[in-house]
């Protein structure tokens, strides 16, 4: 039974901390002139993306290549799925070519679990429906950990997560990881964009918390939500929940501003983020490669406890 990364809760706190510390090694590799190590030579990673993605797919592909793994990219639009082949048959066909890990993004919640029941390869969840996006949570944690130099944990850090919580797998996974490391998370959202049941502290206006936070995490406000009448107008959304020039002026210099991308300028981000002292949005993207390398190395590089017992050392 191979190991997989499906959600932050299944990973657990020890696993989360282990991956963050392996990511330090990957960050050191990525600082070199030649950012490549032979660790995963001979391993094959298949990217299965059933939803559009730029940064996550490229990030996983780069991560695999920097560890010297081979990559296969599966483009749904050019695949036999269009001829009516089932997902299961497609996956089994690809697995028969010899794949050590599948990286899957799918519009249906739970698809990665389904996939892992069909294959002996490792499965990495790169986003399923509204449910989970564990590598995003990892890169967010790694960004906070390195920028604030909080290696031991996030005790006492105050996080405001702002926007469409209900439809956001990022909100779910990142909130869970923040809390696992000891941070306090407040959700800032209109009632229509909250999940039906939750335990988080909620406020309905960004101004209520903006003076008392260490991290401002803005979520992407999708324009479709307006058509569904969950938000009256994007301009009203910006008024209550967007980072406007007035709010940016109130923001302490120590406050990290984070966004999972892609960003809607003028909606949730109504200022130029590059002018914010605490802007770490580009570091999030860079760290995405570090943590995805850590995940791939942890899953594919660690082997089993007893396959080479007593292996000589030094």
């Amino acid at each position, binding site marked *: 039974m191979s190991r997989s990364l499906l959600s932050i809760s299944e990973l657990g706190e020890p696993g989360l901390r282990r991956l963050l510390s392996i990511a330090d*090694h990957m960050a*050191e590799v990525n600082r*070199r002139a030649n950012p490549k190590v*032979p660790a995963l030579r001979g391993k094959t990673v298949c990217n299965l993306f059933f939803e559009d993605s730029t940064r996550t797919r490229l990030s996983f592909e780069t991560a695999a290549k920097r560890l010297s793994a081979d990559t296969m990219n599966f483009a749904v639009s050019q695949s036999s799925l269009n001829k009516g082949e089932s997902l299961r048959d497609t996956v089994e066909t690809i697995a028969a070519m010899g794949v050590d890990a599948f990286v899957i993004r799918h519009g249906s919640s739970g698809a990665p679990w389904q996939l892992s029941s069909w294959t002996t390869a490792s499965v990495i969840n790169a986003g399923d429906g509204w449910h989970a996006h564990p590598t995003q949570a990892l890169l967010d944690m790694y960004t906070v950990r390195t920028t604030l130099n909080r290696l031991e944990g996030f005790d006492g850090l105050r996080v405001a997560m702002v926007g469409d919580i209900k439809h956001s797998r990022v909100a779910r996974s990142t909130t869970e990881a923040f809390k696992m490391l000891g941070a306090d998370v407040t959700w800032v959202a209109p009632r229509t964009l909250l999940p039906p049941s939750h335990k988080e502290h909620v406020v309905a206006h960004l101004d209520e918390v903006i003076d008392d936070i260490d991290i401002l995490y803005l979520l992407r406000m999708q324009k479709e939500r307006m058509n569904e009448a969950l938000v009256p107008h994007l301009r009203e959304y910006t008024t209550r929940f967007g980072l406007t020039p007035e709010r940016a002026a109130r923001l302490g210099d120590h406050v990290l501003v984070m966004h999972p991308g892609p960003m809607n300028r003028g909606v949730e981000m109504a200022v130029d983020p590059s002018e914010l002292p605490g802007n770490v949005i580009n570091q999030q993207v860079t760290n995405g490669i570090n943590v995805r390398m850590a995940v791939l190395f942890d899953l594919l590089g660690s*082997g089993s406890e007893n396959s080479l017992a007593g292996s000589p050392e*030094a």
Partner: protein
Amino acid sequence: MTNTPDEKSPELSGKQVLGPDDVRRAITRMAHEIIERNRGLAGVALVGIQTGGVWVAELLAAEIARIEPETDGVRLGSVDASLYRDDIGLRPVTPGTVSDLTFSVEGATVVLVDDVLYTGRTVRSALDAIGDYGRPKSVQLAVIVDRGHRELPIRPDYVGKNLPTSSEESVSVTAEGVVISGGGS
């Protein structure tokens, strides 16, 4: 180097083969040999292999600075070889501490430093790791204990103590001494 029980079980009952003074004297002698062999310290850099070689490299660097007080001493760094091992995927690999090489190894005389030399596989992976930072003029190897059982054509240039062991035994090296334990006794 490693986190296996191999070199890290001083609490187990074992046979002490070197005491703290022996380790100190071995380091002093190796420091002299490094200076002598390289006719000084120009271009010499000590690189400890994570994690067991790091403290040895630090002591060697301090000793070299004591012997040659009028020079700037040697450059000191460390390298983590875990991403270069040839047994990745075969056994659990947990990277130790992150590599710390702040100087360029290009053209340098790199002295790799470890506590125990055994199969030579860690040294091989460290050589690959160093090669990714640049092309040293030469690479030498310093170890406190050479316990034999090489599996690769690798030999040390500076040795604290040759210590024939059986592969069932484990060897622990600290500044407090060298202890052999296990071996079915």
